[in-house]
């Protein structure tokens, strides 16, 4: 009996193997015949258009990605300590998590902030908090990412002002502000104003950075949150690029030339556990963006065509059950990010399905990146999976899937229209439900959750943020409001309102306002008066 026959007779584990990209059936094996002959030129070499293999010729041989752990909790003192701890542990960039009131334009003493202060991030009410957050950290020398959207112009103004107080020239500041409001209406939901005034704020910030902060990434167009909300890899890719197109178009409509701002547009994606699909997703994304920038927007500067991105490993896949298993998941996800060619990476902590990360869990997460960087060998060559028949097939597959969504959204009149119609939200909600049903039926297996369960494992030591944090922050805020020059605050807030009503750039008025110690809540209220507030319609 030949080996061939024996192989044929062995039954496979499942009737059908499918990608999670779009449910396409996966073949048993891939060969050169599965690759589109016409697509050979799409692959090219690292550093060459369309950058499928990497934006730089040398990849990580030249420079490793920035290890940028997202952190922020309680008050500025605790967070400042955590930053210094992470820096001492070898982290190479900062990433600020702001608490929800700051993200949504409320001060810590607002009734809606009750219970939220310092919980999901650090409480920043005024420039005073921002100054203390960076005490002992030279902002001229570090690179900082800030996850802030609706209130991004206010927080960037505070960051710039804090840096100036340290003696830094703002033209030297390096970092990223998320500033991606469109995805907030799709997922995550930390919007304040409606789409139109929000787009104006986004572009005001981008224009300001193009003029005065040339090293700062003025936007980080984010698919991460859509993926967390349930999007598939193809949806994440397609919807994010569609939003990117909307921002580029909005800047062009403001009279900016594409190459004056596009090199500072950056992206943010998720990495899931399906290693090869995720690597393929990043390769496809680079190729799609390069083509759109060159062919659709006529970019000439190669930097405008290079998709640069931060990756966060996926929070949704972390399980509360058997939390140590999450270390393995995060490792696979981080590996996908690195083999996919990210510029910056946050690895999640194993206890995040239970609480904010503890110091021990954060350290393991950072060490995971360092082990991949220095021990795994995957950084020794660029795009190590390039040329794998399966990965190349998946890359084409994701590109095609994403382009279908992009074309569909173009037909609707662009991302803003598609969001207003609820199209993107509904597509994602359907994928989320579909996934849950697959998990519930056991079709999608999750170790420790629907298979290989134990139950009763001991809870790890979790980080706690006590209610005293809220009291401390509120009393600090009321002292500030007593001690500052309140007549000046009235004047600067009035200037914010006037600027909001006008059509010039709002940033200078915001910078004056934060320097007078007007708070996030006060400035946001000044904008609310002009722009109104947005309520979601509860799309299911």
């Amino acid at each position: 009996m030949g080996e061939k026959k024996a192989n044929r007779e062995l039954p496979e584990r499942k009737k059908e193997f499918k990608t999670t990209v779009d449910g396409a059936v996966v073949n048993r094996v891939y060969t050169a015949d599965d690759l589109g002959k016409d697509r050979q030129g799409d692959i090219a070499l690292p550093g060459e258009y369309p950058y499928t293999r990497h934006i730089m010729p040398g990849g990580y041989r030249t420079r490793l990605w920035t290890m940028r752990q997202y952190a922020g909790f309680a008050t500025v003192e605790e967070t400042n300590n955590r930053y210094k701890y992470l820096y001492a542990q070898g982290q190479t960039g900062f990433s600020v998590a702001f608490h929800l009131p700051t993200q949504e334009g409320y001060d810590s003493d607002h009734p809606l902030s009750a219970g939220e202060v310092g919980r999901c991030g650090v409480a920043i009410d005024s420039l005073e908090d921002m100054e203390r957050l960076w005490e002992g950290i030279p902002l001229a020398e570090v690179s900082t990412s800030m996850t802030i959207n609706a209130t991004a112009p206010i927080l960037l103004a505070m960051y710039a002002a804090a840096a100036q107080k340290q003696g830094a020239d703002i033209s030297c500041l390096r970092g990223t502000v998320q500033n991606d409001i469109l995805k907030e209406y799709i997922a995550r939901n930390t919007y304040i104003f409606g789409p139109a005034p929000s787009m104006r704020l986004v572009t005001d910030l981008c224009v300001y950075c193009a003029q005065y902060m040339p090293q700062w990434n003025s936007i980080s167009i984010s698919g991460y949150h859509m993926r967390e909300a349930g999007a598939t890899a193809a949806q994440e890719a397609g919807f994010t690029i569609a939003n990117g197109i909307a921002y580029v178009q909005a800047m062009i409509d403001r009279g900016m030339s594409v190459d004056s701002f596009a090199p500072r547009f950056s992206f943010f994606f998720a990495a899931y556990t399906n290693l090869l699909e995720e690597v393929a997703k990043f390769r496809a994304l680079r190729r799609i963006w390069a083509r759109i920038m060159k062919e659709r927007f006529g970019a000439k500067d190669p930097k405008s065509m290079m998709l640069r991105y931060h990756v966060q490993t996926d929070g949704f896949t972390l399980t509360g059950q058997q939390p140590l298993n999450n270390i393995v998941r995060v490792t696979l996800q981080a590996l996908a990010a690195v083999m996919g060619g990210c510029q910056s990476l946050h690895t999640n902590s194993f206890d995040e399905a239970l609480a904010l990360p503890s110091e021990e869990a954060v350290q393991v997460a950072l060490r995971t990146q360092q082990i991949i960087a220095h021990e795994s060998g995957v950084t020794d060559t660029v795009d190590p999976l390039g040329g794998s028949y399966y990965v190349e097939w998946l890359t084409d597959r994701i590109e095609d899937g994403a382009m279908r969504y992009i074309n569909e959204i173009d037909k609707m009149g662009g991302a803003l229209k598609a969001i207003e119609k609820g199209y993107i939200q509904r597509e994602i909600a359907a994928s989320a439900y579909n996934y849950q049903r697959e998990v519930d039926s056991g079709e999608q297996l999750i170790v420790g959750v629907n298979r290989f369960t134990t139950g009763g494992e001991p809870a790890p030591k979790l980080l706690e943020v006590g209610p005293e944090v809220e009291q401390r922050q509120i009393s600090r805020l009321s002292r500030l409001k007593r001690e500052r020059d309140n007549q000046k605050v009235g004047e600067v807030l009035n200037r914010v309102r006037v600027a909001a009503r006008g059509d010039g750039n709002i940033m200078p008025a915001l910078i004056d306002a934060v320097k007078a110690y007007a708070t996030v809540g006060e400035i946001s209220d000044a904008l609310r008066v002009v722009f109104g507030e947005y309520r979601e319609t509860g799309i299911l």
Partner: protein
Amino acid sequence: MRDKKVRVLLAKPGLDGHDRGLKVLARGLRDAGMEVIYLGLRLTPEQIAEAALEEDVDVVGLSCLSGAHMVLFPKTVGLIREKGGGDILFIGGGIIPGKDIPGLEAAGITMVFGPGTPIGEITGFIKERVRRRGVDNQD
């Protein structure tokens, strides 16, 4: 006479915008034959209480991932109980550390469903509790 369908109000109190779980649950409860009022997010306990009483629901499901659950859940339950919603069943979900659960139970949240809970477990729980209460009420 009210219809026989179990009426469930789902809401996210506080400022947290992560609504994936609640939206999936809303679909799941509908597929299980329940009537779902999805109130959405960024709600105060007062707004949720008002809607729960106005809609005359059997169940209120609250979700929170921001860590504000110990403030927002008990306050919501308290307001609803105060205003006459004594027989409403409360369930909670989100990122809730295990050590907080006894406190939430004491405040009137009958069950906290953590991440990874199958939808069937939640629909089963609601059906069992709401039916049992119906029988008790007939005694």
